[in-house]
């Protein structure tokens, strides 16, 4: 039979099917119909679980390259093999199919090949036999007019015509499945476009969102500030001498602290690994690994945090000297005050950026600039603080005096020309 004739035959059969209402024998038989179903798909697993009205539960799965029926291993189904792919296609269709079509979809499925696939197919059909209706042939659809062609011979399965019809019907099913997949993709595309459209709305149409977001951000910064100040107070209370030692190092050896902090940042990981290697090789040091591995990272984190607080202390001290120089207030200022003001100073740029954010999208450039400066400042504070902790050995030996005394130099002597006579 030619291709045109085969397609015409296929169309005639489809047209005939569409004109028919489902026969009573095609409806659910018996009381134990399909009650619920669960389909789970992942890289390694494709499982179908069915529950019937009489309480019977059945499960069919391809998991890790094996076929399982009710927990029984019935054979192999290699990943991405023909059976695996056909089973996954069936389950994907089952996920999207209307409830009335589910049973028919499952019973109509033909497993490729034999062996495990044949067993799976047979078990599935036996589980659903007499319980569900086959796929409804779209009874609500308007019947198509029968094509004006001579009535063909009735195709007999297995004969040449029958094989052609079966082949074309299989192809039609494949194309329908592909069409469904593409429809899903198209739907996803529409969703993406809709989302992009929403995102493209000019920000000035959502002023309260900006204000709300900025206020929420400011509250976050205040919370972080409160935590840092709390930690700073604890550090001052228990280790005032050490935090002041580190802070003095920050103030009087800022550049050295920064360079040491930078180098320390790069060397932390190699030092950690080297320590592990040395302790491992030395054999006797093996028990020390139990201390070294967890405590070294903790010590580094504490050093960085302590350094940051010391930078805050130094900043607060510098601010106090500027504001209260020569006054009584300066005499009353103390380390708690320095931590309070200095830490606030370090975070002030973040707050400023959020305040600018409230004003609208027109000042976003300034907001970006302030955020950038704030991040750079924070990074610098962490680096310098870490370096100062290392330089001063945790504040125990600050390299310079906390309050440098005026040099005992007579300026007049410097410029006085020495007599070599």
């Amino acid at each position, binding site marked *: 039979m030619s291709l045109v004739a085969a397609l015409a035959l296929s169309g005639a059969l489809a047209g005939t099917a569409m004109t028919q209402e489902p026969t009573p024998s095609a409806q659910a038989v018996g009381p134990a119909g399909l009650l619920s*179903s*669960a389909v789970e798909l992942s890289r390694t697993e494709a499982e179908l679980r069915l529950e019937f009205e009489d309480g019977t539960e059945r499960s069919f799965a391809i998991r890790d390259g094996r076929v399982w029926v009710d927990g029984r291993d019935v054979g192999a189904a290699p990943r991405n093999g023909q059976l695996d792919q056909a089973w996954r296609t069936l389950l994907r269709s089952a*996920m999207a199919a209307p409830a009335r079509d589910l049973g028919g979809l499952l019973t109509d499925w033909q497993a490729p090949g034999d062996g495990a696939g044949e067993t799976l197919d047979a078990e599935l059909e036996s589980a659903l036999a007499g319980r569900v209706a086959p796929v409804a042939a779209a009874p609500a659809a308007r019947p198509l007019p029968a094509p004006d062609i001579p009535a063909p011979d009735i195709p007999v399965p297995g004969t040449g015509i029958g094989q052609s019809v079966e082949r074309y019907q299989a192809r039609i099913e494949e194309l329908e499945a592909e069409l469904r997949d593409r429809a899903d993709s198209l739907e996803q595309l529409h969703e993406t476009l809709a989302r992009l459209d929403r995102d493209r709305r000019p920000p000035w149409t959502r002023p309260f969102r900006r*204000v709300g*977001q900025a*206020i929420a951000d400011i509250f*976050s910064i205040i919370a972080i500030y409160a935590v840092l100040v709390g930690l700073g107070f604890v550090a001052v209370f228990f280790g005032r001498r050490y935090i002041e030692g580190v802070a003095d190092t920050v103030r009087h050896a800022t550049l050295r602290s920064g360079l040491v902090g930078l180098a320390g940042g790069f060397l932390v990981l190699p030092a950690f690994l080297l320590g592990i290697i040395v302790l491992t090789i030395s054999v006797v040091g093996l028990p020390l690994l139990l201390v070294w591995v967890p405590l070294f990272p903790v010590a580094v984190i504490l050093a960085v945090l302590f350094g940051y607080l010391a930078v805050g202390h130094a900043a607060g001290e510098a601010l106090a000297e500027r504001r209260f120089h020569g006054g009584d207030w300066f005499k009353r200022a103390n380390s708690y005050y320095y931590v309070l003001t200095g830490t606030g100073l370090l975070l002030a740029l*973040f707050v400023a950026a*959020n305040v600018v954010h409230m004003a609208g999208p027109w000042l976003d450039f300034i907001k970006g600039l302030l955020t950038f400066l704030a991040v750079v400042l*924070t990074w610098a504070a962490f680096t310098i603080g870490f370096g100062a902790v290392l330089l001063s050995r945790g504040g125990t030996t600050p390299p310079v005096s906390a309050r440098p005394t005026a040099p005992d130099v007579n300026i007049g002597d410097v410029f006085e020309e020495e007599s070599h006579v």
Partner: protein
Amino acid sequence: MSNLLRGLTVALAIFATVADADAQDWRTLTNRRQRAGEQELRVRVRFGMGKIEVGAAESGTLYRSTIRYDADTFRPLHDYKAGLLTVGIDGGGAHVWTGEIDDDAGRLELALGPNVPLDLDFEMGAVDADIELGGLRIRRAAISTGASDTRLRFSQQNPERLEGLTVKAGAAAMQIIGLGNANAEQLSVSGGAGEIVLDFSGAWRRDLACKVEMGLGALTLRIPRGVGLRVDKDTFLVSFDSQELVKRGDAYYSLDWEEAEHHLTLDISGALGSVDVHWLN
């Protein structure tokens, strides 16, 4: 999340993304159940982060749910017992949320049967939610969200009398459309910060008492003409657009309050923001 936290967690987020990219184990779980004599379905949705879509299923179905989740981070919730359905996604504590809701955070599609009366209890976190309750029989509904973008619609009439609809939103953009179709007696909306749109269009069948509590943000009210409106407000630094309303005593009334067949009573309290009234023809 603050810019500071964003800045400090960028490296962590990148590291986590790179480290987890190959480890993600995406799964899709679809459950469906036919109606078998249930007189009511109670639905509990627990969904921390991601996208959620709710709508009507085909006739004869009790519910159908599809959950897409990363099994390394999340755990699917699905349980049905004696008319109580619990569904959603649990976990995600280790997931680094960068402020955007993307597909990496999971997805839930829930279709509910149109023939069974429903009692809904939704608790959602950072979600992008699209909830269509038109075509369903809703008796009670309580919806709670965190930082979310939520659209709640009643596109068709609710055949049941909705005894109470409660909506709680954190920092959110919330739209409730077609409240006239909800057939509700009472509506309670509370929002922390954000934009709330309440659209009362639809086929009204009974009077509605609505209570709105807002912290900071904008409230937009869309009222169909012909519905009598009364507004009682207890606000601080909230601008109120009272077009086509007259003030009598402490309340604002629409001009047709006495003649209107159905009445909407709004009790608004808020701290900072604006209330705008738009009349729909």
